[in-house]
């Protein structure tokens, strides 16, 4: 039953499916690979194990499986460098600029951009697509029912968002197609990171005629959601076979470099363990490695030197992901409002033991809430996020509970369906060692969410991966007093002010510097306890070359190739 209950959201990784891991020093490095194993060959289908996506229609895509496929089928305005997600690359947009306070953005589209049916990509297609994301009246083409997108928040800084979301207007007033190739976006507040937001696959352009009329396949009309037509380097070969496979093929009309691969066959598995068995049997080219099998896989298949690029003999990918596993400490709680107690908890946790036992030495202790690979990460950025029993005991005494005397048992909440139990057992043992009694409060995912939504938690586990690889994607949602995702109920007006100031700074270095200052201020108060950084735990077959799995856990098929001669 493990982890099959739900899909991992992209915004936030639920540890369940991703029994992931980290190698030491997993800061992304540029790969040196390429032609070592010969010249890239054209042709071949790469089979790729994933879980069933929730949605392939960009408007509602949010979890990692859906994003993986949509990303291959669509180009949004900008895109990240696969090795270094802090670097932005042009995609559907050739160039872009903003005014001085980052409130008005202008994107110039690539004039050669085409949908895979041959229609040119116009600025109007973005306007249509983005309104679909925000409107509460959007129809899901699979069921024909109204089914609004859960990810409308991507555009909540765009002028007119509130009116459209409340169904008082049908179109975002801040969105304007100046001509076929120029898109102008007006924001309600300065937001210098907006160029990262627009990289999200949910904000890809969609062709209105096909969304509303269906896509022609084999003489029949297929709903757009089963056979999305996009502007990416691949296109659907046939409609989505739910719970079985999604086959995509090279889009020869693509405006950029066309891929070497003939196509990718996403094979759908309920559970990564099954997929791994298939991989071992030789019928999959890429999948996750099952729990408890890392050491075996490393020995058999060899580890990729950069952690991200798969090549024959270097097939196991263990690079760091931009995601953090942490504990929420509810500051509104009578005991946990004590900063020293929160520090004591953070100092008491032996993070390395969790990495070594539960994850076979393939995850990394978290020393910051911002994960490596995101601009703003600093080693040891959260000074209390380390294992130091003596310091923990001292902090506990300073909190007024020497050796835990006088402290009521704390409730440690987690969802029982994601394989968190062992991590929690280790944390419980560590807390006991300094005198803190932690009682388990495990519930299924639905009841767990309800508990956190209802602010009934004391300590609760959570994991966070930003939709966009920017420090703001961690600091604002988790620590701004206005954010709904600030489950610690952390309230620090200088932090709020610092974040607001930072987003208006258009100079990248200065903005990151400001955010780092904010992060340092938050760290001093320990509203959360960073525990682990996620890492890849994937493996490729020995015929796959130059396939890159980015720190955002997205596979890049653009440069991958397959040696067909055995």
């Amino acid at each position, binding site marked *: *039953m493990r982890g099959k209950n739900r899909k991992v959201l992209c915004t936030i990784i639920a540890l369940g499916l991703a029994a992931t891991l980290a190698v030491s020093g997993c800061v992304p490095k540029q790969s040196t690979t390429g032609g070592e194993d010969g010249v890239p060959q054209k042709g071949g289908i790469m089979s790729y194990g994933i879980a069933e996506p929730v949605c392939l229609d960009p408007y509602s895509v949010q979890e990692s499986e859906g994003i993986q496929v949509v990303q291959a089928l669509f180009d949004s305005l900008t895109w990240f460098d696969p090795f270094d997600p802090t670097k932005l690359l042009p995609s559907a947009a050739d160039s872009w600029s903003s005014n001085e306070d980052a409130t008005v953005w202008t994107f110039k589209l690539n004039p050669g951009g085409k949908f895979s049916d041959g229609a040119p990509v116009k600025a109007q297609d973005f306007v249509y697509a983005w309104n679909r994301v925000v409107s509460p009246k959007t129809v899901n083409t699979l069921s024909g029912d109204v089914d609004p997108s859960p990810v409308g928040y991507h555009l909540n800084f765009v002028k007119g968002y509130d009116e459209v*979301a409340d169904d008082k207007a049908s179109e975002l007033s801040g969105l304007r197609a100046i001509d076929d190739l120029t898109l102008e976006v007006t924001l309600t507040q300065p937001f210098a990171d907006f160029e990262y937001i627009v990289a999200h696959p949910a904000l890809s352009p969609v062709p209105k005629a096909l969304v509303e009329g269906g896509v022609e396949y084999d003489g029949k009309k297929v709903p757009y959601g089963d056979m999305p037509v996009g502007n990416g380097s691949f296109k659907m070969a046939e409609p989505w076979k739910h719970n079985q496979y999604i086959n995509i093929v090279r889009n020869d009309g693509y405006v950029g470099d066309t891929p070497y691969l003939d196509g990718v066959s996403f094979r759908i598995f*309920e559970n990564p363990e099954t997929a791994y068995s298939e991989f071992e049997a030789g019928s999959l080219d890429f999948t996750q490695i099952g729990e408890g099998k890392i050491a075996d896989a490393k020995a058999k298949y060899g580890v990729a030197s950069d952690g991200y690029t798969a090549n024959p003999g270097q097939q196991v990918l263990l690079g760091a992901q931009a995601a953090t596993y942490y504990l929420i400490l509810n500051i509104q709680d009578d005991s946990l409002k004590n900063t020293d107690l929160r520090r004591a908890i953070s100092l008491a946790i032996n993070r390395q033991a969790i990495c070594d036992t539960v994850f076979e030495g393939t995850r990394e202790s978290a020393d910051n809430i911002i994960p490596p690979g995101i601009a703003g990460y600093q080693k040891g950025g959260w000074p209390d996020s380390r294992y130091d029993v003596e310091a923990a005991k001292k902090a506990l005494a300073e909190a007024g509970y020497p050796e835990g005397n006088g402290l009521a048992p704390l409730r440690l909440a987690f969802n029982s369906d994601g394989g968190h139990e062992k991590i929690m057992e280790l944390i419980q043992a560590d807390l006991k060692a300094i005198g803190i009694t932690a009682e388990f409060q495990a519930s299924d995912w639905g009841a767990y969410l309800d508990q956190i939504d209802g602010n009934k938690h004391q300590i609760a586990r959570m994991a966070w991966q930003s939709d966009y690889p920017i420090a703001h994607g961690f600091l604002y949602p988790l620590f701004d007093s206005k954010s709904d*995702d600030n489950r610690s109920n952390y309230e620090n007006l200088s932090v709020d002010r610092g974040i607001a100031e930072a987003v208006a700074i258009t100079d990248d270095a200065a903005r990151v510097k400001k955010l780092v200052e904010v992060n340092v201020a938050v760290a001093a108060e320990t509203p959360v306890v960073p525990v682990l950084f996620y890492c890849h735990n994937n493996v490729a077959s020995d015929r796959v070359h130059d396939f890159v799995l980015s720190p955002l856990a997205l596979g890049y098929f653009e440069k991958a190739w397959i040696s067909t001669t055995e």
Partner: protein
Amino acid sequence: MIKYIMRRVLQFIPVFFGVTLALFLIANYMPGADPVRMRFGERTPSPEVKEQLVKQYGLDRPWYEQYGRYIAGLSPVKVTDGSLGIASPDLGTSIYTGRRVSAILGEAYPYTIRLALLAIVIEAVFGIGAGIISAVKQYSFWDVIVTLSTSVLVSLPVFWVGMMLQWFFGIWMKEATGGVLYLPISGTSGIFPSVAYMILPAITLASVSTAYAARITRSQLLEVMGQDYIRTARAKGVSERGVLWGHALKNALIPVVTFIGLDLGAMLAGAVLTEAVFNWPGIGFTIARAIAQRDFPIVFGGVTVMLFAVMIINLLVDVSYALLDPRIRYGVGADE
């Protein structure tokens, strides 16, 4: 006979309403996040979107109204624009995926049926075979073995059997025999187009039932062998073999076939544990996942289809029982 069938169908009606009503009540009082909330994961949903979805699925209505709508959707007779018409039953839309429930169940059921059929074959062949051996050679070494092993089989945790089989055939045998006797641990498609990938799940699913089938075969056969007409046949000089195959088995197997038939019904209702161990995307797995996701339309639809499937199979079993058993057909003694 028709009257009998009618009575059985009528008896099904309160069961159907009882089960579905209980489901709606349970769903209504289940603590935890509402079904719509589940779609958003850890991120707090925007209130507008949530409200829209709640309305869309009618979750803002009281439970009895939702129940009424569900039954109305199921009904093949529908009122549209004031006039009665016939439409295919509507199981609704999954809240988690936005897809039609009928499409989701349509994908899961073939897996369940395939597995159930193979398991039933295993159960019939091995269960009846072992039962016959142990009855014919009563109190022999083989009888003791069969009797003991049925006790062991009914005491086995199904999921543990599955895992031990995976370990033995999927891992140990692969290493020890160089892959000769290797059976794939699981896997629902791909390089095993044959039934190879179904063997371990089917054995697991069949394990407990096989033991019961063997026990029933044994006790029935022993009972029949002691009856007058068998003694008569023996007195007439029919050989032991002839008595067994020509006379005894025919009557002794009727309850066994009934048991196996009912078991098929139960297997079609989904084998949650076997499917969980082998990641088999069948109906039990689908419903269990839907419960965790609070995706109630799938739970309601799945259980409804399941109830009808089990009812139809049980009815078929009863009818064939009546047709097979002369005592029931003629209402007189067993002697032919």
